[in-house]
């Protein structure tokens, strides 16, 4: 073979290599999560979940032969950092999609950036305004605040509660929840007899619960994500206020039930089924999904699973399924998610549509209660 032919053959060979390399371009996924800071108990399990699932996925050969590359950025829960990391992920790393942020404030801050860059954003936060109005490239996998409030009011009606004392923390989550509760209460014939907002770093709330006691409330509803939600319960019981206590879906980390100890018994709150994985009925559609996730997570990280890590599980699962169907074409993947029906995740069964980028119905929530320091389904 003469040298020229040899060079041509080598070039052809190189070209074919490049072609095959282009075929298996990796799926680059960015994650904006509050791994440290005040929202760390949301972001940290989410980051751990992604790390675990991406590893497992790549060990099985990735998505349709594509490896998944994960880039986690710790936002510390700050919207400003979330914005600059979002830009970095999009412009510098050219990620295909972003999972997170973990908190509502951060999600609201970055959604427009993702939309303008036509980069999919799968938020793990609760606030309704993230996907209302709908932005084509913005989705969210955590259930809505209004559904949580609705579930709580239904339970209150069943118990004949009419006068409620509302406590909430001065965070995005607390404020959004307070608005929903105040908006939805009249329709259920429930009066908010007293409403108190406390600081997110509060360490004792005896004075606040004393005020509720003075107002003669029939139940307490607390809406926050901080350790204060366990403090509220203890303080109420210590001053001899024995009325039923309701919490938001922010209570769905068994750490808080443990922290409240004996006082936490009987607290009621709405949450997705992942935290009661063992006790789900055999016929429950979510049972295999949540049990597999729970076992893998708890075996690896030696800590209790929470609904928050579950959101990261669902976001990655939805993305992987859509990429598996549509390849690395952003518009096609976006359409694939919009058309996705019956995706069974940890938070519930997702049915997306062009007008519903959350996909979860109210049945994603179940009323739970604390029994012997564990979460169980209410009335079971």
């Amino acid at each position, binding site marked *: 073979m003469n040298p020229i032919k040899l060079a041509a053959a080598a070039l052809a060979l190189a070209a074919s290599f490049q072609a095959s390399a282009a075929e298996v371009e990796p799926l680059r996924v960015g994650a904006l999560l509050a791994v*440290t*800071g*005040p929202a*760390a*108990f949301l972001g*940290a399990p989410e980051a751990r979940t992604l790390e675990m699932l991406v590893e497992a996925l790549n060990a099985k050969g990735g998505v349709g032969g594509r490896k998944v590359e994960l880039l986690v950025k710790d936002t510390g829960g700050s919207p400003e950092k979330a914005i600059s990391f979002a830009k970095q992920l999009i412009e510098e790393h050219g990620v295909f999609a972003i999972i997170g942020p973990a908190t509502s404030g951060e999600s609201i801050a970055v959604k427009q950036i993702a939309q303008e860059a036509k980069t999919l954003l799968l938020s793990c936060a609760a606030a309704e305004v993230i996907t209302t109005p709908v932005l084509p490239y913005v989705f969210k996998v955590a259930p809505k605040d209004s559904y949580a409030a609705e579930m709580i009011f239904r339970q209150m009606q069943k118990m004949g509660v009419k006068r409620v004392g509302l406590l909430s923390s*001065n965070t995005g989550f607390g404020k959004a929840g307070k608005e929903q509760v105040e908006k939805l209460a009249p329709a259920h014939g429930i009066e908010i007899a007293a409403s*108190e*907002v*406390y*600081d997110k*770093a509060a*360490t*004792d709330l*005896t*004075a*606040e619960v*004393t*005020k509720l*006691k*003075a107002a003669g409330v029939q139940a307490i509803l607390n809406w926050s994500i901080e*350790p204060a939600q*366990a*403090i509220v*319960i*203890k303080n109420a*019981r*210590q*001053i*001899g206020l024995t009325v039923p206590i309701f919490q938001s879906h922010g209570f769905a980390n068994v*750490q*808080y039930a443990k*922290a*409240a*100890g*004996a*006082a*936490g018994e009987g607290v009621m709150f709405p949450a997705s089924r992942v935290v009661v994985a063992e006790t789900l009925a055999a016929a429950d559609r979510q049972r295999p999904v949540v049990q597999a996730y729970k076992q893998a997570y708890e075996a690896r990280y030696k*800590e209790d699973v929470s609904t928050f890590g579950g959101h990261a599980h669902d976001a990655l699962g939805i993305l992987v399924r859509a990429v598996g169907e549509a390849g690395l074409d952003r518009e096609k993947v976006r359409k694939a998610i919009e058309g996705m029906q019956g995706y069974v995740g940890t938070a519930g069964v997702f049915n997306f549509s062009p007008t519903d980028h959350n996909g979860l119905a109210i049945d994603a929530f179940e009323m739970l209660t604390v029994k012997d320091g564990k979460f169980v389904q209410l009335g079971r």
Partner: protein
Amino acid sequence: METGLLLQYLVAGLTYGTIYAVVGVGFNIIYNTTGIINFAQGEFVMLGGMSAVTLHAFLPLPLAIAGAVLLTMLVGVLVELLFIRWLGRPTVLRMIIITIGVSILIREAALVGWGESVRALPYFTGDEVSSLSLGGVHVSPQVLWSLATCLFIVAFLWVFFQRTPVGRQMRACASNREAAALCGVPVKNLVTLSFALSAGIGALAGCVVSPITYTSYGVGGGLAIKGFTVAILGGLGNSTAAVAAGFVVGVLEAFSVSLLPAAYKDAISVAILLAILFVRPSGLFGSAELARLEARG
């Protein structure tokens, strides 16, 4: 307002007050011997609570607390040896920046070591729901424990500073460092001791209040601000006054909740601080004359 409710707010105030007071006392001890405000004081409280929870996994409660106090004292000593001792005559600003740096260092180390989760020691007596009924007022036994600890700390410090030779030497340091050094008082070692002492007191407080307030790697900052407020309010350097100021702020905060939305609670304590400092710049219990002399000297 009915009496029962009134007393209930008072008890809530005393609970806040004890926590503020003990942190404020820690500020004072170091201020007295060194003239600096140690902004890592809140981290000592956090370290005490967190290490006691960890030790409690292997040890009975009293030993776990003792161990946590000793460990935190060791950290206090290390902080002094590594960051403070070798500085010749540092400016106040430099010291503030150093102690803030130390507080960030301890906090981040705690985050790496313990993670972000929230912990607490069990209640010393009874559990989360038990409360003593005193004339229609409900009090958690843990509140009585922390009140007793606070009083014990104050009594201990009084005896230590007034009745022991080392305590006298520390007071000598406080009133005039150079004169004390000339009289043969080992000033540098006393500074180390003051860090150990305030770390130990902070840690003890951290253990006693942890069943009430919980503890996590990040609680130090907030505690330091409240403790600092109380130390200033009482008059810097006066531990008994800091305790009194702690109770004043705690009770006012609790009653403010009965009249105003709870969100204003922190604003109330800062407003009180500002108001009192306008009228009495040397603090509630400080001597105005002394403050003037110090300012001149």
